[in-house]
């Protein structure tokens, strides 16, 4: 894909970063609002989509390496898993840093309730989803490029 016009590119420059901020906001408040890891991660992943649309593949692939997103993916998954294992003497994913319901009620409304592992889990899932969706978008984009540019190339490693 070729880069779009200068208007689009400037708009992208102005607003793209806010997507990440908004995504992070949704992720971090996932435990107490109707947001969460997946939603925030999906918002954050639109950043790379916007870059791809505005600047075209050649530039974006020179800016980012897909390995970074792979790292985010693995980090998120591992963090999720370790959080789950930390609850183990009781049960998988037991809310071990949560405050019981009675205490929350005694402190009254308006105080953000400490929701234990759910908040941490949301952050882990958010990182994972942002990485995974970016990978999906990048590899589908690469798939388009493969058949835009001339005849189909041989695939590697499949020796039949």
């Amino acid at each position, binding site marked *: 894909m070729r880069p779009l016009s200068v208007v689009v590119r400037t708009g992208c420059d102005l607003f793209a970063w806010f997507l990440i901020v908004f995504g992070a906001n949704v992720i971090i408040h996932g435990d107490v609002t*109707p947001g969460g890891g997946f939603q925030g991660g999906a918002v954050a992943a639109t950043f790379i989509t916007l870059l791809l649309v505005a600047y075209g593949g050649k530039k974006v692939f020179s800016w980012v390496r897909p390995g970074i997103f792979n790292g985010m993916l693995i980090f998120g998954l591992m963090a999720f898993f370790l959080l789950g294992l930390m609850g183990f003497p009781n049960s998988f994913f037991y809310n071990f840093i949560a405050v019981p319901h009675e205490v929350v009620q005694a402190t009254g409304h*308006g105080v953000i*309730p400490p929701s234990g592992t759910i908040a941490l889990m949301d952050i882990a899932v958010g990182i994972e989803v942002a990485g995974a969706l970016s990978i999906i978008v990048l590899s*589908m984009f690469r798939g388009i490029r493969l058949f835009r540019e001339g005849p189909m190339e041989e695939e590697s490693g499949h020796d039949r």
Partner: protein
Amino acid sequence: MIGNAPFFVVGVLFLMGLVSLFLSKNLIKIAIAISIIGSAVNIFLVSLGYRAGGTIPVHFLAGEGSTMVLPTPQAMTLTAIVIALATTALLLSLIMLVWRHYGTLDIDEIRRLRG
């Protein structure tokens, strides 16, 4: 009667999805039909949990309202959306590969596997 309107919409959407799934020949349209069916199911789940005048089912955001909408169907819907996203991405990637191999998206011409 008006309370049943969402379910009516669900039925119409679901039938639309099924009809276009069976009648359309283009793979992209079939993928869209599957997404429509998924959306119909999601609307079904959300409207199951709706209570008239209900508020957000978060303990400290609910305010003074006494009824809350049910949170479980909403959680189910979110999970279903996540799954639908994964399958849609996979389906579109498969369609891209089909286009690369066959050079067409017409399902009548994509039939190497027969009998």
